[in-house]
C-alpha cells in the first residue's frame, strides 16, 4: 500500500473497495463493523467543540477518537474521515497523533497544499458514507434534487448531516 495518498480519485477507490468488502453495500454504512474489520479501536470522548476527532497508530495499534459532544450524524462523518486517514495516511499517523478540527469547514475543503490529506480524507469519508452507485440509484428512482426536502431525506437515509449531503452532492 502506498504510504501517503493525496489523490482524490485513489481515495474514492479505497472507500468503494472497503464499502464493498466490509459494508456489503448496506445503507447507512456500517461504520462500527468496518472499523472492527480494519482493526481500528474507536473511542468516543468529549472534546472541545472545535475539535472533531483524532487518529494515531501507537505500538502498531490503530486508534481513533471521536468528539462525543457533536451530533451523532456529524460523529459519523468524523469517524469516516479518521478511517480515511488510517487507510490513506498510515505514515503520518505513525509519527504522532493527528488532530482534526472541524473537518468539513469550507476553508479545509477549498484550500490546497498541506491540506491535501484532509481533502483526500473528506473525499474518502463522503464516498464511504454515500457510495456513488447508491446515490445515483436513489436520485434516479426516488429523489428529485430540486425538491427542497430532498437534502433532509438523503441526510436521514445515510445518517449524515445536511452539510455532509451538500458536500457529497458537490462531486456528483
Amino acid at each position, binding site marked *: 500500500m502506498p504510504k501517503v495518498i493525496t489523490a482524490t480519485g485513489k481515495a474514492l477507490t479505497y472507500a468503494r473497495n472497503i464499502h464493498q468488502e466490509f459494508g456489503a453495500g448496506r445503507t447507512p454504512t456500517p461504520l462500527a463493523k468496518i472499523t472492527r474489520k480494519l482493526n481500528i479501536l474507536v473511542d468516543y470522548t468529549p472534546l472541545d467543540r472545535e475539535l472533531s476527532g483524532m487518529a494515531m497508530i501507537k505500538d502498531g495499534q490503530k486508534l481513533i477518537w471521536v468528539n462525543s459532544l457533536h451530533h451523532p450524524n456529524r460523529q459519523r462523518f468524523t469517524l469516516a474521515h479518521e478511517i480515511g486517514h488510517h487507510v490513506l495516511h498510515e505514515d503520518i499517523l505513525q509519527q504522532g497523533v493527528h*488532530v482534526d478540527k472541524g473537518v468539513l469547514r469550507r476553508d479545509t475543503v477549498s484550500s490546497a497544499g498541506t491540506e491535501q490529506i484532509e481533502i483526500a480524507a473528506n473525499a474518502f469519508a463522503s464516498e464511504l458514507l454515500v457510495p456513488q452507485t447508491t446515490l445515483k440509484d436513489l436520485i434516479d428512482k426516488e429523489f428529485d434534487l430540486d425538491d427542497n426536502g430532498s437534502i433532509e431525506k438523503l441526510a436521514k437515509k445515510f445518517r449524515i448531516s445536511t452539510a455532509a449531503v451538500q458536500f457529497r452532492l458537490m462531486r456528483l
Partner: protein
Amino acid sequence: MGHSNIYKHVGNNLATRRNELNLTQSKVAIAAEISRPSLANIEKGNQTITLHQLYKLANALELDDARKLLPAATSTMKLNPTPTTIKIKTTSKNLNDGHRTEVQKVLSMLGKR
C-alpha cells in the same frame, strides 16, 4: 493498552509464593479447584485469572489477603507507561494551547484502560 503485563505479574507472584511453600502445581491446583495446566498457564501469564480463582489460589497458598498477589497500582502504571512524548500534529494551523492540553489529557488515558 495491552494489559498482559498484569497477568504476568500476578502469575509470577503465584509461582514465587508456591515455590516458597515448596508446593507442586498439582497440589495447589487441586486445592484451588482448577486444572494443573490452567495453573501453569496462569503462572506464565498466558491465561486470564478470574477473581474467584484469585481468592481460591490465595487460600491454597496460605495467604490471608488475596491482594498480596496483585501488583501495586503504581507498578501497573509503570508497566503501562503513559505516552507523554507523543507528537501532536494537525493540518489546521491554529491548534491552541487549550486544545493541546486537551489532546494530551486524552492521550494520557491510553495506558489506563
